[in-house]
């Protein structure tokens, strides 16, 4: 049911399919603890990581996932590419298409770039983040993290606090957690909420305390300083005071609540330093989960050979 499909955004999957991805990821987790971290699942498959926008975390995560599964990996990054010499996106893709790529992982600063890529290739496409549109693999790792901790979605309340407007992670997370049946409460100054955000099926809280109230999962989002100059908020100090996730505010969540953040963190802005390092923080685990969920996706989409310990 997965083979050959593209992942433009997370809502291409239904609940059953998402759970299947999580289960597959679970079975891959063991591989990462082996002394030899390599299985031949994708031997002979050619994967190209197309990074038109600088990224370290996501690119490394994908690369480790691909190499663990023994895929042949080609990296294409904008800084080393002919794009700088004025070659268009279209021509870049047409050139690469001649090289027999089976799957592209694409990161781009422009929304819709993965859809555009599909116009010029028959290979499988995974969106690794396109502008402020979507970041489905980050959402899937977030979903897996919650699944691992809570083993449930329907009785789970997720609070998302911060710059939702500029966060493709938040946009994909809102879609996915609604598909999974969770309740979502979001909070940000209205300048940082996109139009008609309620249509995701989320509640907009006026204060962070209200969003966090009784939450099982609290998610912070990166706040970037440059938003200040575009008139979206007055100062980082005021932002932290009014919307920062502090231990005090975390008290409103359920006692066993977890704290998540897609990283990189701005300590003292969206997260208090104490909060980031607290025991309820699963931020480091998210990174590991990023690798196994990406392995699961690659494996399912490319229809890799059976490996021991997986079904």
């Amino acid at each position, binding site marked *: 049911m997965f083979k050959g499909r593209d992942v433009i955004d997370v809502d291409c999957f239904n609940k059953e399919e998402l759970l299947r991805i999580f289960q597959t990821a679970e079975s891959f987790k063991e591989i990462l603890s082996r002394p030899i971290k390599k299985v031949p699942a994708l031997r002979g498959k050619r994967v190209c990581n197309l990074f038109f926008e600088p990224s370290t975390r996501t690119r490394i995560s994908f690369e480790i996932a691909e190499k663990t599964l023994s895929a042949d990996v080609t990296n294409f990054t904008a800084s080393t590419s002919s794009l700088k010499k004025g070659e268009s996106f279209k021509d870049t893709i047409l050139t690469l298409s001649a090289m027999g790529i089976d799957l592209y992982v694409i990161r781009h600063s422009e*929304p819709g770039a993965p859809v555009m890529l599909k116009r010029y290739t028959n290979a499988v496409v995974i969106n690794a983040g396109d502008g402020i*549109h979507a970041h489905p693999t980050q959402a899937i790792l977030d979903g897996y993290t919650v699944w691992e901790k809570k083993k449930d979605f329907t009785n789970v309340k997720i609070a998302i606090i911060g710059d939702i407007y500029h966060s493709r992670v938040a946009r994909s997370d809102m879609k996915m957690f609604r598909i999974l049946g969770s309740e979502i409460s979001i909070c940000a100054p209205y300048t940082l909420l996109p*139009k008609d*955000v309620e249509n995701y099926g989320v509640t907009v809280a006026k204060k962070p305390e209200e969003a966090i109230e009784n939450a099982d999962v609290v998610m912070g989002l990166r706040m970037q300083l440059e938003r200040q100059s575009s008139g979206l908020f007055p100062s980082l100090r005021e932002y932290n005071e009014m919307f920062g996730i502090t231990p005090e505010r975390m008290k409103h969540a359920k006692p066993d609540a977890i704290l998540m953040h897609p990283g990189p963190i701005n300590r003292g802005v969206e997260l208090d330093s104490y909060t980031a390092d607290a025991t309820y923080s699963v931020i480091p685990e998210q990174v590991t989960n990023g690798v196994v969920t990406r392995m699961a996706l690659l494996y399912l989409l490319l229809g890799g050979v059976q490996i021991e310990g997986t079904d």
Partner: protein
Amino acid sequence: MKVLIKGGDLISHSYVGKYDVLISDGRIEKVAKDIDNDNGYREIDASGCFVFPGFIDMHTHLREPGFEYRETLDTGLKAALHGGVTTLACMPNTLPAIDNKANVSFLLGKSKDLHLADLLVIGAITKRREGKELANMGEMKMAGVVAFSDDGSPVTNSHIMRRAMEYAKSIDLPVISHCEVTELSNGGHMREGWFSTYFGIYPIPDVAESIMVARDIELSYLTGERLHIAHVSTKRSVSLVKQAKRDGIPVTCEVTLNHLLFTDEDLFDYDTNKKVNPPLPTRKDQDVLYEAIEDGTIDILVTDHAPYAPHEKEVEFQRAPFGISGLDLFSNMLFEVHRRSGIGMRKLVEAATFVPARLYRLEDKGDIKERNLGDLVIFDPTQTWECLPEILYSKGKNTPFIGKEIKGKVIATLKNGEIVYDAEEGMMRRVEEIEAR
């Protein structure tokens, strides 16, 4: 040489229904039921077809001078005839801008020599369209412009706009305003709403248009100048225009066929051929646009024909320029609006013929009636064809219809009683015919 069009289904201001049309010396001589052809008239069988007055498209970009790789007068005027447009006005956002009499004369002279569709020229409001100093409007009027506009950009400075409107009033020509508060629209690429959020495309709020519509209506109230609002696309703009008309302010407006056929939701595939400014409306706003045509708040239909070269549009959505090529498909798009909106064909045809002719005082155009020019379109609503790039005369293949199956087909376009476009023969060589005479 007389031409007799037999058996067509006329849709025009003066005649609706089955009539024959006899044209002699370039003008309509007679419209009647069953005109006998015993005098050897050249007969055109229009049975099963609509016969429209030649369409008048008051908002096009023909790119000459300066952007000939996108379009030329030759390709643009041929595209017009292919779409059933026999008279069209071009906007002055060329390089250099059409802001002086020499440029106006150049366009008018060149288009006359081409013997294709009739070209009307709209002059710039301000020099180089910079919004700073008034262009030589009087000289341009003497050279033959029909209106003034800085289309493509708004006249941001309200004081300059006021003076421009006063001055234009003193020479009795209307001003066409491209309403856009750029501080609100800059950086945006589609209409702000749920779909801009869902697609992750930076948005343009609807009020970026209506705020300036309100300003210009107030300036029209102040100056008494005839104001025409270009490409209205939001319910708020419609509501302001409706109120202004009730108040007796001399304001008219247009909507593009694009805004009647597509909505923000259609951008799901990030197709740059659907990227246009003002951005495509929400479905709700589109319904208001339909109503506004019905109740007459919206006066005319236009293409806002904006051809681009393929390499300009084959880029990421937010990096692509705004604009849709439309002239080749004018009749098809109008028919499609009828099919989708349920608005009567007569209403739509009038909004693209009779009404613009009245607004711009084109006395012998825009209607099928005795003594009007023999500018006619014969359109078969039953034929379908595939919209391949090579079929379009325009250099701009940037239409959402490209590669799609299209319902209805222009069988022939007549200009001054002569067939200038024929679906089977293509563009007729009128120049040679005229020279041979």
